[in-house]
């Protein structure tokens, strides 16, 4: 099976804190990691390769330091790594990102069987790049994929939904977005780490993709971020005393404001 895995290097947002004084994100000292669900996608690809044979190629779009993320995926057992990096790609929203990724796949892996990616990145939190890439590749998709069985070119995918799961059939080529419940990603082995740095990671720039400027980066992004704020993290410290009915009423009102009920 010719499998392409799309990964993203992200800051570990579980470690990000808000500075109470400046109200901005404290990014200093926050380690960069492979987006957790992308790691599940890599694990899924490696399992499929172990079962059905083939090749696992890992692709990431990012600045030069995203190389480290590729190396980690290679250390886990992926075969080849590709870094899509070009200053023209910067500032891309999910549409432009999908454009760059799908063009890369069409150019470098024209005969792919399966594209896997994590369902959602923990920095953007959109879960949009997977389906947009599938659309731009012109292949069917299954999102929230938890299990995958392969039989020839037929895929049987278990898809997680809110109140249970669905079983979906489709044929390759296809794209799946993988959820965290799908598997437990393996640790890279020590020899895997050293071997990962023996291979060349291929750089892909716009010279390879030949996209026009208007399709790239910030220019090619239909959505624009106009403002960012940090939510107020100060503890409210509101104390309700008196009869239970009143207190509860007040509490529920506050919880509703925070959309917690």
């Amino acid at each position, binding site marked *: 099976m010719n499998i392409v895995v799309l990964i993203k290097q992200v800051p570990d947002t579980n470690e990000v804190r808000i500075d109470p004084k400046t109200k901005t994100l404290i990014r200093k000292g926050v380690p960069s990691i492979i987006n957790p669900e992308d790691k599940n996608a890599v694990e899924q690809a490696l399992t499929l390769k172990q079962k059905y044979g083939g090749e696992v190629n890992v692709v990431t779009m990012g600045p030069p330091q995203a190389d480290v993320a590729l190396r980690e995926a290679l250390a886990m057992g992926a075969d080849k790594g590709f870094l899509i990096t070009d200053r023209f790609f910067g500032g891309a929203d999910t*549409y432009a990102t999908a454009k760059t990724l799908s063009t890369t796949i069409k150019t470098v892996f024209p005969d792919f069987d399966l594209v896997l990616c994590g369902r959602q990145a923990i920095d953007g939190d959109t879960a949009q790049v997977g*389906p947009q890439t599938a659309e731009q590749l012109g292949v069917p998709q299954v999102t*929230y994929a938890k299990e995958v069985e392969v039989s020839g070119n037929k895929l049987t995918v278990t898809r997680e939904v809110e109140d249970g799961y669905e*079983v979906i*059939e489709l044929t390759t080529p296809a794209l799946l977005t993988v959820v965290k419940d799908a598997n437990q990603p393996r640790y890279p082995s020590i020899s895997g780490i050293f071997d990962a740095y023996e291979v060349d990671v291929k750089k892909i720039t716009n010279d390879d993709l030949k996209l026009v400027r208007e399709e790239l980066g910030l220019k090619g992004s*239909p959505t624009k971020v106009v403002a960012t704020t940090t939510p107020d993290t100060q503890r409210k410290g509101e104390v309700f005393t008196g009869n239970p009915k009143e207190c509860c009423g*007040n509490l529920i009102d*506050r919880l509703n404001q925070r959309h917690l009920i």
Partner: protein
Amino acid sequence: MENKDIWVLAEQRNGKIMNVAYEILGAARRLADKKKCEVCAVLVGDKVRDLSDSLIHHGADKVYVVESPLVKDYTTDAYTNILEQVIKNFKPEVFLYGATTIGRDLAPRVASRVHTGLTADCTGLDIDEDGLLLQTRPAFGGNLMATIKCPDYRPQMSTVRPGVMEKLAPDAKRKGEVIDFDAKLDDKDLRTQVVKMVKAAKQVVNLEEAQVIVSGGRGLKTPDGFELIKQLADELGGVVGASRAAVDSGWISSDHQVGQTGKTVRPELYVACGISGAIQHLAGMSGSRTIVAINKDPNAAIFKVADYAIVGDLYKVIPVLIEQIKSEKEENSAS
């Protein structure tokens, strides 16, 4: 033809309109009133026309119905093809979806199909001075709120987080139009097939992944108190936690323990009942986004870290709280 009107996908499953569809209708209504235009709902399914009335009662001016046995259940291809035709035909100004497993599967596909911008999981929608949709949403795991615009492409699309927007109180006297839309649909175009749908009970969520935790401490005075804690947790859709004192007293097993020698948790909501707030306990939960404390002692240390606190006997307060939450939820989902 210019783009106009606020459109929503009236998501239905198994012949029932999803609650989030009513919520986004409410949001659409408020946006349409600002922009002085109409709210149009798209209803897709097999034999679902009768659901149109309730959409109109909840704020839709027009309901476009697309019916076919091919769309009895959701598939990406069928819905994408249908919405592509709807969008090309009617040129909506704004298109909203619920951020459900359907909405988050479909909306990005449509966005790429028609080449427009999409904002995910919005918690706020408004119109700015230029008449553009202002979309506010959490990023960075909730540590950041971003406001997004889509100035040059149409429709401006968003998926909207369920449980956030307020739906309108249904008005049976509201009038609207129900229009059949004949979308071209060919089963050859449907590349995925749903062969099985299984309703599975939610697996027991572990403490560290739970979004809502209700914990009991020494203030419960007896192990039976945990039944009340469980009821409250169930109402809030959460799991039960405990302080070390409660676990050491044998009232509940140690895998519920939150704290220095238990688990460290960071849920959206942590409700501490009868827990004094010893430093060992705080070590395990002070990172929770919203902390509620219920305690008889107004000087309990837990009040220093709580967002909201009720001073009172938890055996009197919690039953009242459970009842009020029940009625609040009934109000929210009534249609």
